[in-house]
C-alpha cells in the first residue's frame, strides 16, 4: 500500500469514527446503559439475505436469538424474518446535548434485537456502548490536546522569546514535570481531585488533568522553535524597525510554530486518548455504567469473559486502528515538513 492510500484510509476511519461518536444517539440502536437482562453475553447478530426456504431478500433481515434456559448459550430461530428497518423510533436521546429525538438510524422490530458487537454481562448493546464510549474517549483526547497545546504555545513562546528569567523559570518547571514518569504524575494530580460521581464532572476533571499534566513536552519543543526563529535576521530586522513584541510574535514567529504544533497535535491526541483509557481502566476515570473505551476494556479484564466471549474484545481492538491512524497522520505531517512536495 502506498503512503497516500494509507493516509486516506486513516482519515476515512477517523472521520467515520468521529461522526459516529458525535451522533452516537442516532447511530446506535439503543442507549448505552439500557440493560436487557434476558440476553447477557449474546453473540453479535448476523445479517441474513437468504431465508431458510431459500428465498432471497433484497432487504437484509435478522433472526431472533433464543436462549437455552439457565445458560448463556443462544441459537438463532429463523422461523420469522425481522427485516432491517431504517429511521425507527426507539429510546430517547439528546443530539449535541440539545436536540431531543427518538429516531435511530436502524433497528429491528421486537422481539428481535440487533447487536452488531454482541452484548455484555448486563445484556447491554456493545455497539451502542462503543459509540458512546468513542464520544467520551475521542473527545477527551481532542480537548486535552487543545489544553496542553495552548498551554505549551503560551509558555513555550514566553520562554523562547523573552529568554533570561522567564526561560529559566518556565523551563525549570517543565523539567520538573518531565522528570516524572507521566503516569505517576497523572496519578498524583488525580489524587488531588475528588473522585466525583457525576459523569460530566469526571469527564471534565480527566480532560483537565490530562491536558495540564502534558503541557511540558509541547512547551519545550515550541520554546526551541521560537528560540531559533527569534535569532533569524528578519526577526531582528523587524524588531530594529520598531515592531512591537506582539507584532513580531504574531506575524513572524507564529508561522514557525504552526507546523510544529500541527505535527504534535495528532500525536498528543493519540497519547491522551490512551491516557483516558488507562485512567478509566485503573478505576480513576469515568466509572460504570458510563461507557468509555477504558471501562469497555476493564470489562474484559476477567479471564473467563476474555476467553469465552470473543466479541467482548471487539470495541477494545478498534482502539488499535484509531491510534494508528492518528500516528500515521502525524508522521505524514512531519515528513511533509522535511520535504515539501
Amino acid at each position, binding site marked *: 500500500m502506498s503512503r497516500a492510500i494509507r493516509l486516506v484510509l486513516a482519515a476515512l476511519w477517523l472521520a467515520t469514527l468521529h461522526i459516529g461518536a458525535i451522533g452516537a444517539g442516532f447511530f446506535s440502536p439503543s442507549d448505552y446503559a439500557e440493560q436487557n437482562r434476558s440476553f447477557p453475553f449474546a453473540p453479535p447478530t448476523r445479517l441474513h439475505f437468504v431465508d431458510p426456504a431459500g428465498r432471497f431478500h433484497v432487504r437484509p433481515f435478522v433472526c431472533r436469538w433464543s436462549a437455552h434456559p439457565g445458560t448463556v448459550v443462544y441459537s438463532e430461530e429463523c422461523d420469522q424474518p425481522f427485516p432491517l428497518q431504517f429511521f425507527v423510533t426507539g429510546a430517547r436521546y439528546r443530539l449535541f446535548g440539545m436536540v431531543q429525538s427518538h429516531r435511530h438510524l436502524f433497528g429491528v422490530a421486537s422481539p428481535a434485537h440487533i447487536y452488531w458487537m454482541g452484548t455484555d454481562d448486563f445484556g447491554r448493546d456493545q455497539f451502542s456502548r462503543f459509540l458512546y464510549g468513542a464520544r467520551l474517549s475521542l473527545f477527551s483526547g481532542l480537548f486535552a490536546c487543545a489544553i496542553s497545546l495552548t498551554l505549551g504555545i503560551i509558555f513555550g513562546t514566553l520562554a523562547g522569546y523573552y529568554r533570561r528569567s522567564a526561560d529559566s523559570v518556565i523551563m525549570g518547571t517543565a523539567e520538573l514535570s518531565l*522528570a*516524572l514518569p507521566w503516569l*505517576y504524575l497523572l496519578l*498524583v494530580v488525580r489524587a*488531588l481531585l*475528588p473522585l466525583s460521581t457525576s459523569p460530566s464532572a469526571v469527564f471534565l476533571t480527566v480532560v483537565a488533568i490530562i491536558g495540564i499534566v502534558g503541557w511540558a513536552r509541547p512547551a519545550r519543543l515550541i520554546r526551541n522553535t521560537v528560540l531559533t526563529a527569534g535569532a533569524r535576521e528578519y526577526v531582528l530586522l523587524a524588531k530594529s524597525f520598531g515592531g512591537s513584541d506582539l507584532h513580531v510574535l504574531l506575524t513572524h514567529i507564529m508561522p514557525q510554530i504552526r507546523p510544529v504544533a500541527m505535527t504534535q497535535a495528532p500525536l498528543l491526541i493519540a497519547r491522551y486518548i490512551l491516557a483516558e483509557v*488507562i485512567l478509566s481502566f*485503573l478505576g480513576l476515570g469515568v466509572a460504570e455504567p458510563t461507557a468509555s473505551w477504558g471501562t469497555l*476494556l476493564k470489562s474484559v479484564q476477567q479471564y473467563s469473559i476474555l476467553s469465552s466471549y470473543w466479541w467482548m*474484545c471487539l470495541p477494545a481492538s478498534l482502539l488499535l486502528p484509531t491510534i494508528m491512524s492518528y500516528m500515521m497522520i502525524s508522521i505524514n505531517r512531519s515528513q511533509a515538513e522535511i520535504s515539501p512536495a
Partner: protein
Amino acid sequence: MQTAAIYAGRRALRGLYILFGVSLGSFILSELAPGDFYGEARLNPQISPDSLVRMKSEHGLDQPLIAKYCYWLESVVRGEWGFSLSYNMPVGRLLWWRLLNTLLLTVTATVLAWVVAVSAGIWLAAGGRTVHRLLARGGLALLVATPEVLLVLIFQLIAARSGYLPVGGMSSPEWPQMKLWNIAPDVARHLVLPVTVLTLSALPAIAMHAASSITEVLDAPFIRGARANGIPQWRLLWRHALPAAAHPLIASFGLSVGTLLSASVLVESAMGWPGLGGLMLEATLERDVHVVISIVTLSAVFLVAGSFVSDLLLYSVDPRIRRE
C-alpha cells in the same frame, strides 16, 4: 574544557534540584487537595471529632506545610521515608521489597528492550532484504500503536490458553515451603509475561529511533569515504557508524526509563506484580500522602539516575561535550 569530575558534579547538582523540586511540588499539591486520609473516618459515627483531631495532631497533619515537609525530609534522611497511615508503619519498610520487585521488572525489561531494539535498528538500517524490512517496519508501527492495556490482555489470554505460564502474581502459592533454589526459577517463570509486555511496549520507539539515526549516519560523507577506501561492511558498522549514531540514542535512554516506569504501573496492577505501581495506585485512592510522595520521589530518582547514566555515557562517547 571541563574535566569529568566537574561535568559529573554539575549533572548531579541538577539531579538534586529536580528531586528537591519534585518532592516539594508534590507536597504543595497534596496540601491543595481537598480532604485527607481521615475523610472516611469522619463519616464514622463511632469516632468522635475530638479523637479525629488527636489522631491528626499525633501524625502532625495539623502542622504548617513547611514543618510537614521538614519532618518528611528528616525521616528520609533516617531512611524511613515518612509514615504510612494506612499501613501504620514507616514507608521505607513498605517500599523496600516492592522497590526490589519493580527494579527486577523494569531493569530486566530495559536491558532486554535496548538490546533487542538496537540490534533490530542496526538490522533495519543496514541489512536484511527489502521485503523483510518492510514487514518489520509494519510490525513496529503496529506495536507503537498498541496500548499496553491491550498487550497485557493479549498475553494473559495466550498464557491462560496455553497453560504454560502463570497469568499473574510473582510467585506460586506454595512458595513459603519452597527451597531457595526453587524460588528463583519460580519467580523467573512469573517474570516472563510482565517483562514481555514491558519490553514490547518500550521496544518499537527505541528501534525506530536507532534505525533512523543509523540510516542517517550511514549516509554521511565520512562513511562513504570509508567505504570507498574498502573498509569491510561489518567494520564500517561497528567501528565507524555505531559510535557516531550513539549520541541521540544515549540521550533518549533517560526518557525510556520514564516510559517503562509508567508502563510498569499499569502492568503491575493488571498482572498483580507486587511493585511500586500497585502501591502507588492504592495510596493514591486512600490519600496516604507520605506513600504517594515517597514513591513519586523514588520514581524521579530512577529517572534522574537514568539520565545521569546517559549523561556520563555521552561524555565518554562524544568528545564534543568535553570541549563545551
